[in-house]
């Protein structure tokens, strides 16, 4: 991803885009406006900490990455011996399945649990090694900010011993539609097709969630 694509992704106004798309398909309803619930959700779960992308850009977590978007969020670290590479490989498949939507109205984020080692340069190399395409950002930041994010976003174990064991870190992929407050999660090692399909069900208004 080059700087231009990144900025395009960050400056697009998905809110307006979504409303437009829905109207274009004959729907009458509008995207819910900013609401007290949405504000409460932001305040509780999405600290607006400054992170750095694998491309070296400074971004604010809520304002630049989450607000108004459909996103996936997972945690990883590049030195992770077992589970992270498998999850990243799996998510590359998910990214391919979602195709051109990624980076336009679906955004993927992987946050490092090892910010001291995982500098933007290290993350960039990791992304390159895994053939990650644009629209998927690897993020690092101050260790204390990462820890706040991890806790707020629920990537923790209730058992403190387990919670300290980085190699057993929570490997879930949280997916959600921020304006609609639709949030759920899939394990990062679930079938890639299943993860992509689950994400498609919060991909409103492009897709309307119906079963099969």
């Amino acid at each position, binding site marked *: 991803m080059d700087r231009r694509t990144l900025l395009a992704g960050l400056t697009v106004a998905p809110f307006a885009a979504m409303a437009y798309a829905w109207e274009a*398909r*004959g*729907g009458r*309803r509008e*995207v*819910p406006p900013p*609401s*007290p*619930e949405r504000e*409460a*959700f932001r*305040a509780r*779960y999405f600290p607006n900490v400054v992170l750095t992308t694998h491309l070296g850009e400074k971004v604010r977590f809520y304002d630049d990455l989450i607000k108004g978007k459909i996103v996936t969020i997972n945690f990883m670290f590049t030195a992770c011996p077992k*589970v992270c590479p498998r999850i990243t490989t799996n998510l590359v498949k998910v990214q391919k399945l979602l195709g051109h939507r990624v980076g336009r109205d679906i955004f993927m984020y992987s946050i490092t649990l090892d910010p001291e080692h995982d500098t933007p340069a290290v993350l960039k190399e990791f992304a390159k090694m895994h053939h990650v395409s644009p629209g998927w950002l690897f993020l690092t930041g101050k260790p204390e900010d990462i820890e*706040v994010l991890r*806790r*707020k*976003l*629920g*990537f*923790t*174990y*209730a*058992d*403190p011993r387990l919670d300290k064991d980085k190699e*057993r*870190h*929570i*490997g*879930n992929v*949280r997916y959600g539609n921020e304006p*609609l*407050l*639709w*949030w*759920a*999660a*899939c*394990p*990062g*090692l*679930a*079938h890639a*097709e*299943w993860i992509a*399909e*689950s994400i498609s*069900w*919060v991909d*409103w208004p492009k897709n*309307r*969630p*119906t*079963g*099969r």
Partner: protein
Amino acid sequence: MYHNVLGKRVSRARFKEIITAMRNRQELIAAQLSRRDLIKMGLLTSAGYLIPKRGLSARWESPIPDDQPASPPTTPFVEQLPIMPVKQSVASLSPAPTVCPNTAINPATGFPFEGRTRCHQAFTQFPPQVLYQVVQQPGQVTMSPQLPTQTIWGFDGIAPGPTYHQTYGQPILVRNVNNLPLNNGGFGINSVTTHLHNNHTPSESDGFPCDFFAERQYYDQHYPGVLAGFASDHPPHGDINESLSTLWYHDHRVDFTSQNIYKGLAGFFLLFNQFDTGDETTGFHLPSGEFDIPMLFADKVFDPTSGLLFFDTFNLDGILGDKFLVNGKIQPFLHVHPRRYRFRWLDSGPSRFYQIFLTDLNNLSAHNAFWQIANDGNLLPTPVQVKSVRIGVAERVDVIIDFRPFAGKTIYLENRLEQEDGRGPTDNILRAGHGNLLLKIIVDLPTVADNSVDPATRPQFYSLPSATPTPRVTRRFDFDNSNGGWTINDQFMDCNAPRFTVQQNTVEHWILINSSGDWQHPIHIHFEEFQILSINGHPPAASPLVQTGRKDVVRLEFDTTIELFFRFRDFLGRYPMHCHNTVHEDHAMMLRWDIAPVGDTNRNP
């Protein structure tokens, strides 16, 4: 605006939460010091002692220890126990129900009118005689006079939803209409699928987790009202010993079930027949009418600032509430006559286990016995006298309580099972009066006729179907956790991938294993009732907790291996097995299995 709490900056809302939590803790300490007086004065202010110690989860940033969201205080026992209305049928539906889905495009939405994708497999054989239409829609309710009006999502806009009554032999069709809004108010999703737990339902009407339908669509569910075995070993009417009675219906939308049920999408569904008649002067003479009361237990949390229902969307372990609701009200009261009542108890979750005792706060050492007559809605062969019952999420227990010995007194339904987080109970039983008081029962109504059977006479209900036939296959399922995902045999939920296929009209044994000492799982298998063959190698106990009888949820407790007996009959298609801690369920502890004319023998699917 920020406040400084022990050197940390927190927002005004957060500060208020912390103060509320502290105030509740102080309330608790005060209550502990002078509990006897408070009891006498009727000023017991909290549901129990567990609550302020543990709110929702252990992960919040902690300026002070135990800093978790705590609900605002509420005064218990000031509102009457609501009784849900009985669902009324309609003369006709427009458009008329069809065997195959109504795929005509609704011009208002651009999508098919009906969300169903498969044809009814038993519609022609059991044409519906009674029709219902139920609408999933928002509703305004109060759960306590001290909390603001809440917007819930309910069947017909009420929570719990209306209670269905069906009689065996009378097929029905329920049209679910989705009128839920895009705006969820904080949690929940407006695509839904309704599971009737645990009816003998054809797959396409079962409420499979991926058979969800969108707002402004409908979905017709056909409930044939037939007994298991009608098409195989007990033609043509099925096996009377497979009769069901206390069922419940609830949303089952994959990945969002915990949110949607918590938001209110659940209700009771009662089945009657020539024995369990709904009339205590006939059949088994079970207490009926106003003396037959379904009670849906739920624990919830309310935002300390707004007082609105709060759901911790990003929790993975399981969610505990600090307010205890019965039929939609926080700690209600109920006036009763001094006679026998049938209570139908249901743990609607999301994650809590209960062990329910009858507590007389003026005589805490008394063991107040009552009668358990059913397990998961299945009448036991004969009533069993108990001092308590334990239920995990989705389990039901029907009991008969004789209030004559309590005439003039007040007693409480009390949960004395200690549970500190969503992973499961500690298995510690708290002292009487130190648990969570759920319902205040005042035995002050006049003496009335009682035509119901005295359980002490040991009436005989149904016999247990034989569990001795040799299984075609014995399958093993390990319930565990892998990097935060809840697993069955190291795999995760995928609606598209059946993990094994059961051969129709065969017997199977399933072995469920929990090798962890850290969590418990209430495991539910759709479609057929099972019998427990063994728990850790021993036959299931008949007391003090009743583990015998037919069931559809089994509590997979710490370090436990349970073997189950199944017969699979009558219908074909897909069904799930899952943990009914709905937070575990939503985080992948579920699998799809199918029934087909030809099955596999995969022992570790």
